[in-house]
């Protein structure tokens, strides 16, 4: 039996063990990354959710400065806590835009009156069509959109107080 054949099993073993060591050292990243990150916001033109606030169109986002687009609803319980965090972000100079999913104006007025209102604009998405085109599967979700209208980051679930520095950093990168 030739030398090469006799040593081949050892070589194969070394390769396999190497791959297994690599996996043990770098645990698998199971977080979900949006496939829309790095792509422009899909074009949309939502009507106003409230008479007192401007509506939201996709071109309102390509204004040369970054935006945080928040997909929310007055009927969504985690959104109540999230709105307060969004106000902190607003206080630090972030422009927060809202997309209200399957909502009614009277409910929205009550929700914002009770919990605070961080939004510059709110578009109404009564059939979740824009939500679906954004690849968002639930409320709340948030998108960091840069000045050219390109999605830089998708945040699934409520933005919490502990996420504020991370979101601010993402917005800074998108500048």
């Amino acid at each position, binding site marked *: 039996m030739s*030398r090469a054949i*006799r040593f081949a099993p*050892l070589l194969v*073993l070394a390769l*396999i063990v190497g*791959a297994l060591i690599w*996996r043990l050292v770098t645990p*698998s990243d199971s977080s979900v990354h949006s496939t829309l990150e790095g792509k422009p916001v899909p074009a949309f033109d939502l009507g106003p959710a409230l008479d007192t606030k401007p509506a939201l169109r996709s071109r309102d986002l390509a204004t040369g400065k970054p935006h945080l687009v928040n997909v929310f609803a007055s009927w969504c319980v985690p959104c109540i806590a999230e709105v307060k965090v969004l106000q902190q972000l607003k206080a630090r100079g972030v422009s927060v835009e809202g997309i209200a999913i399957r909502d009614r104006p009277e409910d929205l007025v009550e929700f914002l009156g009770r919990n605070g209102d961080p939004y510059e604009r709110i578009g109404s998405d009564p059939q979740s069509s824009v939500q679906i085109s954004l690849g968002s599967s639930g409320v709340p979700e948030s998108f960091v959109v840069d000045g050219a209208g390109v999605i830089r980051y998708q945040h699934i679930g409520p933005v919490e107080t502990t996420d504020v520095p991370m979101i601010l950093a993402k917005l800074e990168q998108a500048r």
Partner: protein
Amino acid sequence: MIAEAGLAALWLAAGLALYQFVLMILSLRGSIEVSRTMRAIAVVQGALTLIAFAALIVVFARTDLSVALVAENSHSAKPFLYKVAGAWGNHEGSMLMWVTILSVAGAFLALFSRRTSERTLIAGLGAQAALALGFYAFLLVASNPFARLNPAPLEGAGLNPLLQDPGLAFHPPTLYVGYVGLSIAFSLAVGALLTGEVDSRLARAMRPWVLGAWIFLTLGITAGSYWAYYELGWGGYWFWDPVENASLMPWLAATALLHSVGVLAARGALKAWTMMLAVIAFSMSMVGTFLVRSGILTSVHAFAIDPERGAFLLVLLAIYVGAAFALFAWRGASLKEGAPFELISRETGLVINNLLLSVVLGIVFLGTLYPLFVEALSGEKLSVGAPYFNAVAGPLALILAVLVGIGPLLAWRRERRPVLKRLRIPALIGGTALAITIIIAPEMTILPRLGLTVAAYLAAASILPLTGRNPLRAPLATWGMVVSHFGIAVALAGMGANAAFTSERLAIVKPGDTLSVGPWLVQLQQVTPMAGKNWTAMEAELLASRGHGPVTLKPQTRYFSDPPTDTNEAAIETFWNGQLYSVIGKPDQSGGWQVRLWWKPFVTLIWAGGALIAIGGALALLGRVWRRRRRRPDWRRERYA
């Protein structure tokens, strides 16, 4: 107290294993007479691990919550059987069971091995001690099953309800006996490579161990497949999940080894290859254990994930497999091949069998680890599933099944008779089956169609070795081979029928509504709440009929409180020609219930075939042991064995 006794027994056993290993080295270098001592140490070591394992079972049976492992994995409200089974339904306990089987197997080798040379036996026992030593270290350092909790909690955390099933009580031990039984083949191969005595004597000593481990692996895989089928409620019997593959890979290697060890025993050929396979078979067991226990691959079998334990196991694996491979590279050159054989001979048939099995093993191994390799090299994430495995391994398995019909008809060394003539009737039966499938199911896909064809052919071909002589006078080993090969045909028929003829129905129904699936009409009678010892459930009553004698199925959706988990308890009714499988899901707002029904014609043949394969193995093992007693060491009698 009992826990401490168990721990002490483990430490003692570890000390003895170290002593056993040192004695082996001394004995191989010098000429001290150690064989009696070695045998005695191996037996005591096995007894000590049994004591430790018994201690763990006792603390679980008593629900001694001051033992951390019990508190984390048991609950006083559990039924008694599951309290006992809970001892191995967790990481530490299952590793203790692994070590217990390893050293008990070593003890059996020391007690019963009469066939190998004394030197090879000593080297083999030393190798077995070295294996045990690493796993003792793993238990005592990284996974102590007897660690205490102070203060003890008032109640335990419970056991994963999916595992609260009679299957759990028997499935892991069966599989582990198979996994770890292969360690004897590994140790004997290492021992023989060390002493240079790779010969037919060694092969005859190794064969019963391989056969025994293989029987248990076959049973374990068959039972595991049935467990997943009825417990997970998906209606499938094999998911190509990494943990399932982890049990399939040692089985494939052991199957190949079983056949090549026969060549070595009868003809003294395939020495290097057989030694390599013996090493690989147990290595696959260790790889499987590593994959399962490190949680390195995503799997439906959500075992605890712990990178440190994974690292420990990986080090053990690298040392043992690396050492064995290095020994092979070092000593392999000195192995002289045995008697030559011609192209058309039993030997060639078994070489092809080995090649095909090895390729299938490689395919399964590659598919299981491919996502890992790709991510390591390119960072891209992907998963490999049933479409790959079925498409690649399926055709190879069919080719193998065709050859299974031919191989046993060939003579050792050279075959001069027209063997293919004897296959006329099986070929005719296969052809008839093919014609029938084309007539009754023209739209069937190619793989199930070929599966049914080959199954029909093999069912006939597999019994040919018993024809042309008085079957009652055929050796038991021949009967074993015939039963196993017939079992392959039966399992293949079940898989083909299941793939081709299953009908499925998923609907939301209200009490009183009727669904049809296959030949059945199934009516939802009512849904009622139920309660068990540690669960509550909603139970549906389904009345199924196909023209006569209706049967009732009662699937449940169960809610366990400790820990809080939902499970589906499928209700399955077995008939001679198939199974009716029913699952009830969640209610909707309007009072309807999700009901899922399958009619699976002849699906039970899959597990019946698996059982036949194992029974054949048991017959062969009985025959070998019995024949050894009668001392008829003539390879010519192994014509059909």
